[in-house]
C-alpha cells in the first residue's frame, strides 16, 4: 500500500507542477524557454528557503523530476559546497550539483545528432 501511495503522490505532485506550467503557457505569452527558466529559478529560491526539500522527501520523483527539482538540486549543492569549501564553493557548487544531468544531455545530444540524421522539427515550441 505504501508503495502504491508513493506513486500516487509522485503522480499528483508531478502532474500539478506540469499543470501549472500548462496554465502559464495557455494564459500568458511565455515561451517554453522562459517557463523552464522560471521553473529553475523558482526551484533555487524554494530550495534555498528550505521549502522544496520537504516536497521531494514527500513526493519523491514527483518533485525531483520537474525542473523545479533541478533548481532545488542547485540550491542543495551550493549549500553543501559552501559548507565544505567556503568562498570557493560559490563558484563550484552550482555546476557540481547539476553536472550529471547536464553532462548526460550534452553527451547524448551529441551522439544523437551523429546517429540520427533528422532535419525536421523535433523540439517542443
Amino acid at each position, binding site marked *: 500500500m505504501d508503495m502504491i501511495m508513493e506513486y500516487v503522490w*509522485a*503522480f499528483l505532485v508531478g502532474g500539478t507542477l506540469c499543470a501549472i506550467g*500548462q496554465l502559464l503557457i495557455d494564459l500568458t505569452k511565455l515561451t517554453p524557454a522562459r517557463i523552464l527558466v522560471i521553473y529553475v529559478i523558482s526551484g533555487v529560491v524554494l530550495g534555498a528557503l528550505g521549502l522544496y526539500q520537504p516536497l521531494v522527501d514527500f513526493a519523491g520523483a514527483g518533485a525531483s523530476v520537474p525542473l523545479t527539482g533541478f533548481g532545488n538540486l*542547485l540550491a542543495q549543492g551550493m549549500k553543501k559546497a559552501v559548507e565544505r569549501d567556503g568562498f570557493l564553493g560559490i563558484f563550484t557548487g552550482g555546476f557540481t550539483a547539476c553536472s550529471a544531468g547536464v553532462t548526460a*544531455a550534452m553527451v547524448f545530444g551529441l551522439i544523437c545528432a551523429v546517429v540520427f540524421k533528422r532535419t*525536421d522539427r*523535433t*523540439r*517542443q515550441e
Partner: protein
Amino acid sequence: MKGDVILNVSKKEYESIYQKHSGKSKLYITIPKAFAIGGFICCIGEFFTNMYLYMGFDAEKAAAYTSITLVLLSALFTGFGLYERIAKHAGAGTLVPITGFANAVVSPALEFHTEGLVLGTAAKMFVIAGPVIVYGIFSAFVYGIVLVIIKAFGG
C-alpha cells in the same frame, strides 16, 4: 498535415500563428493532458529511483542515476521523433520534467546537424538549455553569496 504547414514559416509568422491558436486553446483539455502525462513521467522517475535504491545506491546517487536515465530515454525518444509527437498533446507535461530539458538540448543538436557539428549541433544545443543553466547557476551563485555572508557573521 497541419503541423507541417507551420514548420515552413518564419519565426515571426510562427509566433503570430502560435498566439492566435494558443488564445483558443481549451484549458479543460490542455490542463488534464499536461497533468496526466507529466505525472506519468514522474512515476517513471519514481520507478527508476526505486530500482537504483534497490540496487544499493544511496538516495543522492539514485536520484542522479534517475536523471541520467530519464535524459537518455528522452534523447532516444527525441532521436526517433517520438518526443515531439507526445509533446503535441502533453504541452507542459513533457516540457517541465527533466525529459523536457533533455529534449531542448537533443532536438536542436539534431536539427542543426546540417549546419555542422561545431556551429550547428554543439552551438545550437544550448539555445534553450543555455538560458536555463545560466539563470539556474546565477541564482545558486546568489544563494552561495548569502550563505557565505551568514557564515562570516557566525550564523
